[in-house]
């Protein structure tokens, strides 16, 4: 049986955005089934056309960070997201957070599914590991 790997993302800054994508693309490349659940401030990462920034005052240096990463051929957020989807990584939006943040299904990136906590926990309960990113 394929190993399952779950992640919960609760923050929406650039670093918290990239980490699950790096882990997710790697996991999928290792043959794992990867599920990422976005909740609270992490939810906005699933917004169409999202460009996450570094946290706090560091946000002014996001461009510098992206430039540095592109030097090492690490793609930008949107491109990385597309690669992850191509590799079969599953992305979920927390339904309660959607109501709290006033987000609609139409605001979400294509390929994202809306789930409640129990549906996600059902996946997590069967997975080999679950990481919390927040």
């Amino acid at each position, binding site marked *: 049986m394929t190993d399952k790997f779950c992640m919960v993302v609760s923050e929406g800054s650039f670093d918290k955005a990239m980490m699950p994508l*790096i882990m997710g*693309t*790697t996991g*999928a*490349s*290792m*043959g794992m089934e990867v599920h990422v659940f976005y909740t609270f401030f992490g939810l906005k990462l699933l917004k169409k056309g999202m460009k996450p920034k570094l946290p706090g005052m560091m946000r002014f240096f996001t461009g510098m960070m992206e430039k540095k990463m592109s030097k*090492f*051929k690490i793609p930008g957020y949107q491109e990385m997201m597309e690669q992850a989807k191509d590799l079969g990584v599953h992305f979920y939006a927390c339904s309660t957070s959607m109501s709290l943040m006033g987000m609609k299904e139409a605001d979400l990136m294509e390929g994202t599914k809306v789930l409640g906590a129990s549906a996600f926990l059902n996946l997590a309960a069967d997975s080999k590991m679950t990481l919390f990113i927040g």
Partner: protein
Amino acid sequence: MEKDATLDAKGLMCPMPIVQLARKIKEMKSGQILELLADDIGAKEDVPAWCSRTGNQLVGQEEDGKTFSFYIKIK
């Protein structure tokens, strides 16, 4: 070492060598040998880990200065 294809992942950092490696082997046949070149220092541990996890066999590994060469027999 004999090889059927080469994937040059030099200049790429984690996770890109592994992501490209996973893509590359899909184009290859069982029993073929892929040479992977990388200079990300993490690759030294990452590639053997990827091999043991995915069941592809690491049949050789060399280090030449900053470049690592891995020889992977496709499952």
